[in-house]
């Protein structure tokens, strides 16, 4: 357990320091959200209606952008091989790395959401609903995205291939995340149903993501 905690601490430290690049995701999130009113037009009523969808889309793209750092940096300096050779099961190591990545790159997005909600003319309740669904939903994005990151690092291809592999898997999360936020803001459907499905998607990704990523690393790193 202490090994895993040490791994999480190490990953967070590396991500937050110079060259880590985790906080670039937040900057990207901000820029995507700012671009939207330019594209749609500064119609406040329309922005309020589209707000949850814009925030979710921005968070999805921002989390996709930072994903290839999940294994790539460790692979480049060789520490990924050392981690894979350690006594910890590779599945647990992958889960720990994904957790660290979410804490460093996913959580800042949620903290930034209230500020960005102001730009989109969302009231406090709506912002809270979007932040809550992001809090529950972004771990699913990180844990399913980890599969793509592991494939990309074993194939020495990142970037566009990673996006093409990961985006179809993230569609259900996007659908139910936006559905839950919309339900909380305007109804008429109940908030509970899509929110529970969103929780379920996250839980399923916690199970499948580490196993698939570990299998991919094992197959690819030999």
């Amino acid at each position, binding site marked *: 357990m202490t090994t895993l905690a040490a791994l999480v601490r190490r990953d967070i430290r590396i991500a937050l320091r110079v060259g880590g690049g985790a906080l670039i995701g937040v900057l990207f999130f901000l820029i995507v959200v700012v671009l939207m009113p330019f594209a749609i037009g500064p119609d406040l009523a329309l922005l309020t209606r589209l707000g949850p969808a814009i925030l979710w889309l921005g968070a999805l793209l921002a989390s996709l952008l930072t994903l290839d750092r999940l294994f790539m940096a460790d692979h480049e300096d060789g520490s990924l091989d050392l981690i894979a050779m350690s006594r910890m099961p590779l599945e647990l190591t992958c889960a720990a790395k994904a957790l660290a990545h979410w804490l460093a790159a996913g959580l800042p997005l949620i903290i930034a959401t209230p500020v960005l909600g102001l730009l989109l003319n969302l009231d406090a309740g709506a912002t809270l609903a979007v932040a809550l669904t992001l809090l529950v939903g972004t771990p699913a994005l990180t844990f399913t995205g980890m599969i793509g990151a592991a*494939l990309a690092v074993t*194939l020495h291809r990142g970037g566009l*291939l990673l996006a093409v*592999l990961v985006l179809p898997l993230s*569609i259900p999360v996007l*659908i139910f995340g936006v559905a839950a936020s919309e339900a909380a803001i305007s109804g008429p459907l109940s908030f509970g149903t899509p929110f529970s499905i969103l929780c379920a998607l996250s839980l399923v990704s916690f199970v499948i993501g580490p196993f*698939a990523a570990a299998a991919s690393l094992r*197959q*690819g790193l030999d």
Partner: protein
Amino acid sequence: MPNQLPVTPATTIRMPKDSNMTLIDLANPTRFLSLTARILPWLAGATAILLAIGLYQSAMAPDDYQQGATVKIMFIHVPNAWLSMFVWGVMSIAALGTLVWRHPLADVAAKAAAPIGAAFTFLALVTGSLWGRPMWGTYWEWDARLTSVLILFLMYLGLMALWRAVEDPSRAARAAAILTLVGAINLPIIKFSVDWWNTLHQPASVFRMGGPTLDRAFLMPLLVMAVAFSLLFITLHIAAMRNEILRRRVRSLQMMQASQRSA
């Protein structure tokens, strides 16, 4: 294990006519090639005959009392939709073969199936869209069944991109196998999407508890077409696998030649 298979040159292998072929013999690419060379014409012939019968029956089928002649789109649409999921199932089994036994023939089977499955999925989407226009008044509707099949199509394309992105075939095979198994989660979602959500798409009417709700006049051509399309897939798949095996042999011969020349 592929390493323990006999490595006789392809020209010297003669299979006895009365030998007991087992599944494991098929795992040898050379035997696979010689066996499929014999059965492929028969498969192609059976496919052509069944397709002709199915198309004739579809054309002769009565018009639906509500849908008119457009109901005949079903005879193309439904087999394509079934096949789109069946092919991913075949690829998932091949993926297990790749990951568990690391067998090159499983790699070949998975790689050859992806473009065919993508084509079936694309045809299911297109025919469904053409059918939806007169029936629902729209080419496209963002409901659960349509969306999940569209995701399936995108995943086929992603898989094909993955195969093309990596030069080393066995490395690509292992990566694609993992992605295939993860994507297999989508299959039950597609199948049950019409039960779980309120959708415009009609619920299952052939494979359901309590027998099909489809009339016999429509059911028979549909089943014939389904068998014909399945045979079409098997024929195309085997042909594509043969091409892929030959392509890999050419590739390794070229690499041998290149290394000899440089040496």
